[in-house]
Protein backbone atom coordinates (compact mmCIF):
# COMPACT_ATOMS: atom_id res chain seq x y z
CA UNK A 1 0.00 0.00 0.00
CA UNK A 2 1.44 3.36 -0.96
CA UNK A 3 1.79 6.17 1.55
CA UNK A 4 -0.88 8.18 -0.25
CA UNK A 5 -3.36 5.32 -0.15
CA UNK A 6 -2.59 4.78 3.52
CA UNK A 7 -3.32 8.45 4.26
CA UNK A 8 -6.48 8.15 2.21
CA UNK A 9 -7.90 5.46 4.44
CA UNK A 10 -6.90 7.37 7.58
CA UNK A 11 -8.67 10.54 6.42
CA UNK A 12 -11.63 8.55 5.12
CA UNK A 13 -11.99 6.88 8.54
CA UNK A 14 -11.71 10.20 10.33
CA UNK A 15 -14.47 11.69 8.17
CA UNK A 16 -16.82 8.86 9.11
CA UNK A 17 -15.83 9.13 12.77
CA UNK A 18 -16.56 12.86 12.77
CA UNK A 19 -19.94 12.26 11.09
CA UNK A 20 -20.83 9.86 13.89
CA UNK A 21 -19.64 12.09 16.73
CA UNK A 22 -21.26 15.28 15.44
CA UNK A 23 -24.61 13.67 14.64
CA UNK A 24 -24.50 11.88 17.98
CA UNK A 25 -24.00 15.20 19.78
CA UNK A 26 -26.82 16.87 17.85
CA UNK A 27 -29.19 14.04 18.80
CA UNK A 28 -28.01 14.16 22.41
CA UNK A 29 -29.11 17.80 22.46
CA UNK A 30 -32.70 16.46 22.33
CA UNK A 31 -32.18 14.83 25.70
CA UNK A 32 -34.97 16.03 28.04
CA UNK A 33 -36.40 18.17 25.20
CA UNK A 34 -38.01 15.62 22.86
CA UNK A 35 -41.77 15.78 22.23
CA UNK A 36 -42.40 12.74 24.44
CA UNK A 37 -40.44 10.70 26.93
CA UNK A 38 -40.49 7.73 24.54
CA UNK A 39 -38.98 9.79 21.72
CA UNK A 40 -36.42 11.23 24.14
CA UNK A 41 -35.18 7.70 24.82
CA UNK A 42 -35.32 6.72 21.14
CA UNK A 43 -33.22 9.70 20.00
CA UNK A 44 -30.65 9.32 22.74
CA UNK A 45 -30.41 5.58 22.00
CA UNK A 46 -29.56 6.45 18.41
CA UNK A 47 -27.08 9.03 19.68
CA UNK A 48 -25.37 6.38 21.77
CA UNK A 49 -25.22 3.97 18.82
CA UNK A 50 -23.49 6.67 16.78
CA UNK A 51 -21.13 7.54 19.61
CA UNK A 52 -20.11 3.88 19.83
CA UNK A 53 -19.47 3.76 16.09
CA UNK A 54 -17.47 6.98 16.35
CA UNK A 55 -15.31 5.61 19.17
CA UNK A 56 -14.41 2.50 17.16
CA UNK A 57 -13.57 4.67 14.16
CA UNK A 58 -11.40 7.09 16.17
CA UNK A 59 -9.45 4.15 17.59
CA UNK A 60 -8.92 2.87 14.06
CA UNK A 61 -7.98 6.35 12.77
CA UNK A 62 -5.41 6.79 15.55
CA UNK A 63 -3.64 3.68 14.30
CA UNK A 64 -3.97 4.56 10.63
CA UNK A 65 -2.72 8.15 10.93
CA UNK A 66 0.06 7.03 13.29
CA UNK A 67 -0.81 9.68 15.88
CA UNK A 68 -1.99 7.26 18.55
CA UNK A 69 -4.41 9.93 19.73
CA UNK A 70 -7.13 9.05 22.22
CA UNK A 71 -10.78 9.43 21.29
CA UNK A 72 -10.96 12.40 23.69
CA UNK A 73 -8.14 14.14 21.86
CA UNK A 74 -10.05 13.76 18.61
CA UNK A 75 -13.33 14.92 20.11
CA UNK A 76 -12.16 17.68 22.44
CA UNK A 77 -8.71 18.64 21.26
CA UNK A 78 -9.37 19.74 17.69
CA UNK A 79 -10.66 23.00 16.32
CA UNK A 80 -13.52 23.48 13.91
CA UNK A 81 -11.32 23.43 10.81
CA UNK A 82 -9.90 20.05 11.79
CA UNK A 83 -13.28 18.34 11.84
CA UNK A 84 -14.03 16.51 8.59
CA UNK A 85 -17.72 15.69 9.04
CA UNK A 86 -20.17 16.53 6.27
CA UNK A 87 -22.20 19.69 6.76
CA UNK A 88 -25.49 17.76 6.81
CA UNK A 89 -24.89 16.20 10.24
CA UNK A 90 -23.92 19.48 11.88
CA UNK A 91 -27.16 21.24 10.91
CA UNK A 92 -29.17 22.35 13.92
CA UNK A 93 -31.95 20.18 15.28
CA UNK A 94 -34.61 22.73 14.38
CA UNK A 95 -38.09 21.39 14.99
CA UNK A 96 -38.73 17.66 15.27
CA UNK A 97 -39.40 17.41 11.51
CA UNK A 98 -35.97 18.82 10.72
CA UNK A 99 -34.31 16.28 12.99
CA UNK A 100 -36.32 13.49 11.35
CA UNK A 101 -35.38 14.74 7.87
CA UNK A 102 -31.69 14.90 8.82
CA UNK A 103 -31.91 11.37 10.19
CA UNK A 104 -33.64 10.05 7.10
CA UNK A 105 -31.17 11.63 4.67
CA UNK A 106 -28.04 10.72 6.60
CA UNK A 107 -28.99 7.32 8.04
CA UNK A 108 -30.05 6.07 4.62
CA UNK A 109 -26.69 7.20 3.25
CA UNK A 110 -24.88 5.62 6.18
CA UNK A 111 -26.71 2.33 5.69
CA UNK A 112 -25.48 2.09 2.10
CA UNK A 113 -22.00 3.18 3.13
CA UNK A 114 -21.70 0.56 5.88
CA UNK A 115 -23.05 -2.10 3.52
CA UNK A 116 -20.33 -1.29 1.02
CA UNK A 117 -17.65 -1.09 3.72
CA UNK A 118 -18.43 -4.58 4.93
CA UNK A 119 -16.28 -5.61 1.97
CA UNK A 120 -13.48 -3.17 2.86
CA UNK A 121 -9.96 -4.47 2.53
CA UNK A 122 -9.26 -3.03 5.98
CA UNK A 123 -10.51 -5.84 8.22
CA UNK A 124 -11.12 -3.60 11.22
CA UNK A 125 -13.16 -1.19 9.16
CA UNK A 126 -15.14 -4.10 7.71
CA UNK A 127 -15.87 -5.41 11.22
CA UNK A 128 -16.97 -1.97 12.46
CA UNK A 129 -19.22 -1.70 9.40
CA UNK A 130 -20.84 -5.07 10.01
CA UNK A 131 -21.67 -4.20 13.61
CA UNK A 132 -22.83 -0.68 12.78
CA UNK A 133 -25.11 -1.88 10.01
CA UNK A 134 -27.60 -3.55 12.35
CA UNK A 135 -27.78 -0.34 14.37
CA UNK A 136 -28.17 1.92 11.36
CA UNK A 137 -30.95 -0.25 9.93
CA UNK A 138 -32.92 0.64 13.02
CA UNK A 139 -32.06 4.34 12.62
CA UNK A 140 -33.41 4.23 9.06
CA UNK A 141 -36.54 2.45 10.24
CA UNK A 142 -37.10 5.08 12.96
CA UNK A 143 -36.62 7.99 10.56
CA UNK A 144 -38.76 6.35 7.88
CA UNK A 145 -41.69 5.75 10.19
CA UNK A 146 -41.65 9.34 11.44
CA UNK A 147 -41.31 10.71 7.91
CA UNK A 148 -44.41 8.74 6.89
CA UNK A 149 -46.37 9.91 9.90
CA UNK A 150 -45.39 13.57 9.64
CA UNK A 151 -45.60 13.72 5.84
CA UNK A 152 -48.95 11.96 5.67
CA UNK A 153 -50.19 13.35 8.99
CA UNK A 154 -51.83 16.71 9.55
CA UNK A 155 -51.59 19.77 7.32
CA UNK A 156 -49.11 21.34 9.70
CA UNK A 157 -46.92 18.24 10.09
CA UNK A 158 -46.85 17.84 6.30
CA UNK A 159 -45.80 21.46 5.80
CA UNK A 160 -43.09 21.23 8.44
CA UNK A 161 -41.72 17.96 7.05
CA UNK A 162 -41.61 19.39 3.52
CA UNK A 163 -39.94 22.58 4.79
CA UNK A 164 -37.35 20.50 6.64
CA UNK A 165 -36.52 18.56 3.47
CA UNK A 166 -36.19 21.80 1.46
CA UNK A 167 -33.89 23.21 4.14
CA UNK A 168 -31.59 20.17 4.32
CA UNK A 169 -31.66 18.79 0.78
CA UNK A 170 -28.81 20.98 -0.55
CA UNK A 171 -26.45 19.49 2.03
CA UNK A 172 -26.92 15.98 0.65
CA UNK A 173 -24.83 16.78 -2.45
CA UNK A 174 -21.68 16.74 -0.33
CA UNK A 175 -22.31 13.15 0.76
CA UNK A 176 -21.56 11.88 -2.74
CA UNK A 177 -18.55 14.03 -3.61
CA UNK A 178 -15.45 12.40 -4.97
CA UNK A 179 -11.88 13.38 -4.16
CA UNK A 180 -8.47 11.72 -3.70
CA UNK A 181 -9.43 10.52 -0.25
CA UNK A 182 -12.52 8.55 -1.19
CA UNK A 183 -10.68 7.10 -4.18
CA UNK A 184 -8.29 5.51 -1.68
CA UNK A 185 -10.77 4.99 1.11
CA UNK A 186 -12.41 1.85 -0.15
CA UNK A 187 -15.82 3.21 -1.14
CA UNK A 188 -16.61 5.93 -3.61
CA UNK A 189 -19.80 7.55 -2.30
CA UNK A 190 -20.95 8.63 -5.76
CA UNK A 191 -21.56 4.94 -6.47
CA UNK A 192 -24.10 4.88 -3.62
CA UNK A 193 -26.15 7.75 -4.95
CA UNK A 194 -28.60 5.84 -7.16
CA UNK A 195 -29.53 3.38 -4.40
CA UNK A 196 -29.82 6.23 -1.87
CA UNK A 197 -32.11 8.22 -4.16
CA UNK A 198 -34.29 5.18 -4.81
CA UNK A 199 -34.73 4.60 -1.06
CA UNK A 200 -35.43 8.25 -0.30
CA UNK A 201 -37.86 8.60 -3.21
CA UNK A 202 -39.81 5.53 -2.08
CA UNK A 203 -40.23 6.97 1.43
CA UNK A 204 -41.09 10.48 0.21
CA UNK A 205 -43.68 9.18 -2.25
CA UNK A 206 -45.40 7.09 0.40
CA UNK A 207 -45.25 10.06 2.78
CA UNK A 208 -46.89 12.31 0.11
CA UNK A 209 -43.83 14.57 0.15
CA UNK A 210 -42.02 16.15 -2.79
CA UNK A 211 -38.36 15.54 -3.39
CA UNK A 212 -36.83 19.05 -3.40
CA UNK A 213 -35.13 20.38 -6.51
CA UNK A 214 -31.40 20.80 -5.97
CA UNK A 215 -31.10 24.57 -5.66
CA UNK A 216 -27.46 24.87 -4.64
CA UNK A 217 -24.79 22.52 -3.36
CA UNK A 218 -22.87 23.74 -0.33
CA UNK A 219 -19.62 21.89 0.21
CA UNK A 220 -16.46 21.90 2.28
CA UNK A 221 -17.21 19.86 5.40
CA UNK A 222 -14.88 17.09 4.25
CA UNK A 223 -12.09 19.68 4.05
CA UNK A 224 -12.83 21.29 7.41
CA UNK A 225 -15.10 24.10 6.26
CA UNK A 226 -18.28 24.25 8.30
CA UNK A 227 -21.49 26.19 8.70
CA UNK A 228 -21.95 28.84 11.37
CA UNK A 229 -23.82 26.79 13.94
CA UNK A 230 -21.09 24.14 14.10
CA UNK A 231 -18.66 26.41 15.95
CA UNK A 232 -21.22 27.05 18.67
CA UNK A 233 -21.90 23.35 18.98
CA UNK A 234 -18.21 22.55 19.33
CA UNK A 235 -17.68 25.36 21.85
CA UNK A 236 -20.35 23.86 24.08
CA UNK A 237 -19.19 20.28 23.52
CA UNK A 238 -15.54 21.06 24.25
CA UNK A 239 -16.03 23.63 26.99
CA UNK A 240 -15.50 21.34 29.98
CA UNK A 241 -12.47 19.61 28.53
CA UNK A 242 -10.85 22.90 27.59
CA UNK A 243 -11.38 24.30 31.10
CA UNK A 244 -10.23 21.12 32.83
CA UNK A 245 -8.01 19.14 30.44
CA UNK A 246 -8.13 15.44 31.14
CA UNK A 247 -11.08 15.76 33.51
CA UNK A 248 -12.74 12.44 34.35
CA UNK A 249 -15.58 11.29 36.54
Amino acid at each position, binding site marked *: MSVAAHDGIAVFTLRLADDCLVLSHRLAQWSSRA*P*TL*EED*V*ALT*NIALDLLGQGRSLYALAAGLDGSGRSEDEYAYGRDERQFLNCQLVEQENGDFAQTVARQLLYSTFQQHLWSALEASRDETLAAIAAKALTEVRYHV*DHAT*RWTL*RLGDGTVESHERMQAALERLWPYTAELFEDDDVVANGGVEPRLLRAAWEADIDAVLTEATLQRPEPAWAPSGGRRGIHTESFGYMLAEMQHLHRCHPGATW
Partner: protein
Amino acid sequence: MTEAREPLWEVFVRSKRGLSHNHVGSLHAPDAEMALRNARDVFTRRMEGVSIWVVPSAAITASSPEERDPFFEPAADKVYRHPTFYDIPKEVKQL
Protein backbone atom coordinates in the same frame (compact mmCIF):
# COMPACT_ATOMS: atom_id res chain seq x y z
CA MET B 1 -43.01 19.03 26.66
CA THR B 2 -46.20 19.16 24.68
CA GLU B 3 -49.29 17.61 26.16
CA ALA B 4 -49.36 13.97 25.18
CA ARG B 5 -52.41 13.19 23.09
CA GLU B 6 -51.16 9.84 21.94
CA PRO B 7 -52.94 6.75 23.24
CA LEU B 8 -51.50 4.66 26.03
CA TRP B 9 -50.16 1.14 25.42
CA GLU B 10 -49.37 -1.67 27.82
CA VAL B 11 -46.08 -3.42 27.13
CA PHE B 12 -45.34 -7.12 27.65
CA VAL B 13 -41.85 -8.50 27.23
CA ARG B 14 -40.75 -12.11 27.04
CA SER B 15 -37.30 -12.52 28.50
CA LYS B 16 -34.69 -14.88 27.12
CA ARG B 17 -35.42 -17.56 29.68
CA GLY B 18 -39.08 -16.86 30.20
CA LEU B 19 -41.89 -18.72 28.52
CA SER B 20 -44.51 -16.05 28.90
CA HIS B 21 -44.71 -12.34 28.20
CA ASN B 22 -44.70 -10.30 31.38
CA HIS B 23 -46.16 -6.86 31.86
CA VAL B 24 -43.29 -4.37 32.19
CA GLY B 25 -45.04 -1.01 31.99
CA SER B 26 -46.84 1.33 29.67
CA LEU B 27 -46.02 4.08 27.19
CA HIS B 28 -47.52 6.55 24.74
CA ALA B 29 -47.41 6.08 20.98
CA PRO B 30 -49.52 7.21 18.00
CA ASP B 31 -50.11 3.66 16.74
CA ALA B 32 -49.19 0.03 17.31
CA GLU B 33 -46.08 0.00 15.13
CA MET B 34 -44.63 3.02 16.89
CA ALA B 35 -45.63 1.57 20.26
CA LEU B 36 -43.60 -1.53 19.44
CA ARG B 37 -40.58 0.55 18.57
CA ASN B 38 -40.95 2.80 21.59
CA ALA B 39 -41.18 -0.32 23.74
CA ARG B 40 -37.97 -1.61 22.19
CA ASP B 41 -36.23 1.64 23.09
CA VAL B 42 -37.70 2.12 26.54
CA PHE B 43 -37.90 -1.42 27.91
CA THR B 44 -35.32 -3.59 26.12
CA ARG B 45 -32.23 -1.39 26.14
CA ARG B 46 -30.31 -3.84 28.28
CA MET B 47 -31.13 -7.01 26.37
CA GLU B 48 -34.09 -7.81 28.59
CA GLY B 49 -36.20 -9.43 25.94
CA VAL B 50 -36.58 -11.51 22.82
CA SER B 51 -40.20 -10.66 22.07
CA ILE B 52 -42.50 -7.72 22.72
CA TRP B 53 -46.30 -7.38 22.78
CA VAL B 54 -48.08 -4.05 22.90
CA VAL B 55 -51.77 -3.81 23.75
CA PRO B 56 -53.92 -0.67 23.73
CA SER B 57 -54.58 0.14 27.37
CA ALA B 58 -58.15 0.98 26.37
CA ALA B 59 -58.65 -2.65 25.32
CA ILE B 60 -58.10 -3.88 28.85
CA THR B 61 -61.13 -4.45 31.04
CA ALA B 62 -60.08 -4.15 34.64
CA SER B 63 -61.83 -4.89 37.90
CA SER B 64 -62.53 -1.74 39.84
CA PRO B 65 -61.46 -1.02 43.42
CA GLU B 66 -65.15 -0.80 44.52
CA GLU B 67 -65.64 -4.36 43.37
CA ARG B 68 -62.71 -5.57 45.40
CA ASP B 69 -64.65 -7.14 48.25
CA PRO B 70 -67.25 -9.04 46.24
CA PHE B 71 -64.50 -10.13 43.85
CA PHE B 72 -61.82 -11.27 46.21
CA GLU B 73 -63.13 -11.45 49.76
CA PRO B 74 -65.02 -14.76 49.30
CA ALA B 75 -61.72 -16.54 48.67
CA ALA B 76 -60.23 -15.36 51.93
CA ASP B 77 -61.71 -18.05 54.23
CA LYS B 78 -61.33 -21.00 51.89
CA VAL B 79 -57.95 -22.25 52.88
CA TYR B 80 -58.80 -25.70 51.50
CA ARG B 81 -58.31 -24.27 48.06
CA HIS B 82 -54.60 -24.10 48.74
CA PRO B 83 -52.87 -27.38 48.05
CA THR B 84 -51.29 -27.48 51.51
CA PHE B 85 -53.19 -30.44 52.92
CA TYR B 86 -51.62 -33.06 50.76
CA ASP B 87 -48.49 -35.08 51.42
CA ILE B 88 -46.41 -34.96 48.32
CA PRO B 89 -44.55 -38.18 47.62
CA LYS B 90 -40.81 -37.77 47.47
CA GLU B 91 -40.74 -39.22 43.99
CA VAL B 92 -42.66 -36.24 42.71
CA LYS B 93 -40.01 -33.71 41.83
CA GLN B 94 -42.26 -31.06 40.37
CA LEU B 95 -45.87 -30.33 40.96
